[in-house]
């Protein structure tokens, strides 16, 4: 290990936070005191490097305790995990939520993304600037910083507050005075607007105590696992095939094929991962599921473990979702105490356990291979596929990564039966589906509808466009999605229907803009989002996202480089290069919303 120790050591507080996670150092070489034998022997190598995956948890531990990660703390973490400090620094600076410089005791992250920007984020930022100064101003007590989407779009504007020693808290809708007084209650989980008897995915939310296993079981919880065990691995996977269930994270991959791929892989270790790194602007469905029905996530992961033969699961939860993380950790503890996780799950003769990993502010980590890198303690940079995760996933082992909604839908399949599940929706898009509606509608929130519902019906459920205005455009699929206009309101919300309308359902985000909207600022915010969130690994995306934003800025200033047509051509060229040549979906979709807006000649795009 090419460790060049940083001169500063950790403070006692930092050391304690790290030792609390990693255990006390076993020798001087690990940062403890040197004793006689240390001069003649040292242990490390593979055993030490295997703990590399604790790098991000260690960074969190320090930041949670003291608010930021100093060089001394970074050096000590490097020593403990035998990670070169330069690499540890590279990882720590990769994540937006990790502060490597000095930082205020309390830091307020203010969402100014697409939806919040239309619902008070600007006023909020102005107030905070008056009270606390510029973003990131060095004040030992409190400061603030703008943030991408915090997943609270149904109650904009949103804020996330981190106080050293007191953890993260969400506030939405946020007011400056409330934020700076640190005077707020924990948020309720979210809003449901749908007849309760028709709910399959959301039926427990608000009804069942998310912190009680008994309450979960009383509502039918863990009957899915029992059924799955009865059916056996092959029967279960066959049922999933029959249900037609496809992944809800954006890629729409059939879950039966994915699970069978891992089940059939022969290896000494396999993993299942619940992808709760929900970061697509306009998306908040997985947060509501994790906060309101954490046992369902745990149960479904356990079923995935049974089906695939994986004995270890990771629930990767977005760092901006503190309540979801806390409830999942609690649910795992309860399930373990009840024998529903551990070496012999439910007495059925298979072992499975789950570890929660917290993200740290990186949209890209929702991409499955970037998520692997993040768990492994690397920068969250996507990897080339193939090999596919079912073959080489996290730690190079066969891995099934599933979106939270997909996992909960597995329970619905088991509860209803595959045939009944498949009868909902269309032939290629089966079952119920969650949509996150936000923006200019009367009742923003999370909606569960059968696949095949039209956009117009969904809009009607949400009360239509606010203040009786007309539809300007609807962004389907979040920042990585595409705009459709009023002419497409009758499109069916299915995978194939969305494709026919030149968009995709993506994460299920539906952001509505009324007909007074100037889309110029919206597109620039989307472009800024991709510029900020590009991991920087591959050139088309690293350069392309910057050039795209610059081009939009010139258009907004009415000073196109070489004329409007040339600027349009430049945007088209960038879009082609990013779409064709980027390693992962981020770069491949970074131009899609912008391109669709120009295609529809939305207000603010044409000259």
């Amino acid at each position, binding site marked *: *290990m090419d460790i060049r*120790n940083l001169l500063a050591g950790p403070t006692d507080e930092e050391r304690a936070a790290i030792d609390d996670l990693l255990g006390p150092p076993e020798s001087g070489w690990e940062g403890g005191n040197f004793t006689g034998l240390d001069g003649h*022997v*040292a*242990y*490390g190598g593979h*055993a030490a490097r295997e703990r590399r995956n604790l790098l991000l948890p260690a960074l969190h531990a320090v930041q949670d305790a003291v608010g930021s990660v100093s060089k001394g703390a970074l050096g000590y973490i490097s020593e403990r995990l035998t990670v070169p400090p330069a690499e540890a620094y590279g990882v720590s600076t990769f994540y937006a939520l990790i502060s490597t410089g000095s930082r205020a005791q309390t830091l307020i992250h203010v969402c100014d993304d697409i939806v919040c920007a239309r619902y008070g984020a600007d006023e909020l930022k102005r107030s905070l600037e008056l009270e606390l100064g510029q973003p990131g101003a060095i004040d030992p007590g409190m400061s603030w910083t703008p943030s991408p989407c915090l997943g609270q779009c149904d109650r904009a504007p949103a804020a996330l507050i981190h106080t050293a020693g007191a953890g993260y808290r969400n506030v939405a809708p946020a007011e400056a005075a409330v934020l700076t007084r640190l005077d707020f209650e924990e948020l309720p989980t979210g809003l449901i607007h749908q007849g309760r008897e028709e709910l399959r995915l959301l039926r427990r939310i608000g009804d069942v105590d998310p912190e009680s296993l008994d309450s979960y079981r009383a509502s039918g919880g863990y009957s899915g696992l029992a059924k799955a065990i009865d059916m056996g691995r092959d029967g279960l996977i066959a049922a999933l095939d029959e249900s037609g269930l496809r992944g809800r994270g954006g890629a729409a991959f059939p879950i039966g094929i994915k699970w069978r791929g891992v089940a059939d892989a022969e290896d000494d270790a396999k993993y299942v991962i619940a992808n709760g790194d929900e970061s697509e602007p306009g998306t908040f469905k997985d947060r509501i599921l994790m906060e309101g029905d954490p046992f369902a996530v745990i149960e479904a992961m356990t079923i995935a473990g049974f089906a695939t033969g994986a004995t270890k699961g990771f629930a990767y939860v977005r760092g901006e979702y503190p309540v979801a993380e806390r409830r999942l950790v609690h649910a795992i503890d309860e399930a373990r105490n009840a024998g529903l996780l551990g070496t012999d799950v439910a007495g059925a003769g298979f072992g499975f356990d789950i570890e929660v990993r917290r993200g740290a502010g990186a949209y890209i980590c929702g991409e499955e291979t970037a998520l692997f890198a993040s768990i492994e303690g690397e920068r969250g940079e996507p990897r080339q596929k193939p090999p596919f995760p079912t073959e080489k996933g996290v730690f190079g082992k066969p891995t099934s990564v599933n979106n939270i909604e997909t996992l909960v839908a597995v329970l619905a399949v088991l509860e209803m039966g595959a045939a009944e599940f498949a009868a909902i929706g269309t032939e290629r898009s089966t079952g119920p589906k969650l949509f996150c509606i936000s923006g200019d509608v009367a009742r923003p929130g999370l909606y569960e509808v059968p696949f095949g519902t039209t956009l117009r019906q969904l809009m009607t459920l949400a009360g239509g466009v606010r203040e009786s205005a007309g539809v300007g455009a609807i962004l389907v699929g979040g920042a990585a999605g595409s705009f459709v206009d009023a002419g497409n309101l009758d499109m069916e919300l299915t995978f194939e229907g969305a494709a026919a309308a030149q968009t995709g359902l993506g994460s299920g985000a539906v952001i509505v803009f009324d007909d007074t909207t100037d889309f110029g600022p919206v597109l620039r915010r989307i472009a800024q989002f991709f510029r900020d969130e590009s991991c920087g690994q591959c050139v088309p995306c690293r350069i392309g996202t910057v050039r795209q934003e610059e081009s939009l800025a010139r258009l907004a200033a009415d000073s196109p480089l070489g004329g409007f047509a040339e600027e349009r051509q430049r945007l088209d060229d960038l879009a082609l290069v990013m779409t064709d040549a980027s390693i992962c979906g981020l770069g491949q979709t970074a131009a899609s919303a912008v391109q669709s807006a120009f295609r529809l000649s939305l207000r603010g795009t044409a000259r």
Partner: protein
Amino acid sequence: MEDTDLIVMWGSNAREAHPIFFHHVLKAINKGARMFAVDPRRTSSAAWADVWLGIDVGSDIALSNTLAWEIIKSDLYHEHFVAHATSSFDEYAESVEHWTLQRGQEVTGVPAEAIKQLAHEYATAPTAQLCWTLGITEHHNATDNVLALINLALLCGHVGRYGSGVVPIRGQNNVQGGGDMGALPNRLPGFQLVADPDLRGKFEKTWEATIPHRPGKHISLMHEAMDEGELRALYVIGENPLQSEADAQQMERRLTGLDFMVVQDLFLTATAEIADVVLPAAGWGEVEGTFTSSERRVQRVRRAIDPPGEARDDLELMSMVARAMGHDWPTPTAEEAWDELRSLSPMHGGMTYERLDQSGGLQWPCPTEDHPGTLFLHGRLWEGETGPKAPFSVVDWVPPVDPLSEEFPLRLTTGRRLDSYNTGVQSGRYPSPRRIHGVLDLSPEDAEALGVHEGEVVRVVSRRGNLEAPIRLDRSLRPGLAFMAVHFPDDTDVNQLTIDAWDPKSGTAEFKATAVRIETLVST
């Protein structure tokens, strides 16, 4: 190397001294190979090891014999291989009988538990590579050190198989080639013995000259011959002995006492500056020829640019010297010289330039033009007819020649750093952001006990000389152990301190074990 299961790096900081080789080690490690490091310092190589055994300087044989004791006692040695392919096992086993784990710990300082772990893992690994460099060979008993390691490989059958072997890592791209070409006192090209009249005759016939039947002198014997006035003239090719040899003051007296000295080098080295004649040589991008790497692979080197100024390639320079001496030598092309070698050295016989070009390199022995070259040596030991058995060698541990005492309580060892090369002739003229100039590395504990701090200039005194150097604190050192790099003879000439006690079998001096004390300088 890349496919082995276990790697022992013994007296080798390859991470810094052999960085290219170490990349292959890292590939093996990344594929799961275990690694043990045996080194007094916990170097940047040792930091990659699963277990680092921090032995006391010069206790290598003690450790090796203890490992053998544990392997034999635990019945983990390769009985079939030992019986089939080796000789003198009984004497060897008897010689290590008193090397218990406890005694091993007492002599080497390494905890018995760690010695036992290495013994068991090395003996039971399906394949294992035992690698060493100057930490083994720069001692007064260098050859015994090497034999002690070879004993271990024989004991466990870790030789002559794919993925198993003994690996002395070469410090230059062509050290192997130098020896192959006969730059050894007792060998002709292809390791053929000078003393053998038939072999000598073969060369004499081709060369149309008489070859002296007595072996020449290795470097340490040359030193003695200079001291005795027997050796009066020296032709130095690509060496900087004024600064690279142990006990530099002694060396300067020797070189200045010569009647005549020629230096042939790329650079005007310190040795060249005191020479009578300097012949400017061409560098690697300016010549045609071959290099031979540590793994015996012969590769072509091609001329990309013309040599600067009056510089000539070595072949031309030597031909010119011969002509100046009255011999009618033409200047052969590199290929003509190579083809002559192929006709005389059987192990190179099949390596035509055409094949070398096509294959990108061939490993000797490669006797005929349809021979594919040889991936690893000693495979015969596993065959039905082994040929000559591989003998175990009884080797006794002897402490370093320069003993620690109350007057000289610190053990100074020497070595290289990543950014610099030997005496700095090749690397010193380029800046490096990683360069640490001439310093004395000390453990934080010793610095505290001596009341000295980082950057403070102190006097380092050995029984032979002294120098001044700033202190650098280095956590890789334990109390009692100090380190200096060899790269800065103009500022901090570590060879003012070292001892030229040398190994009678290899002729190498004990650079690695010097007794020193540190004197603080009174501020004026």
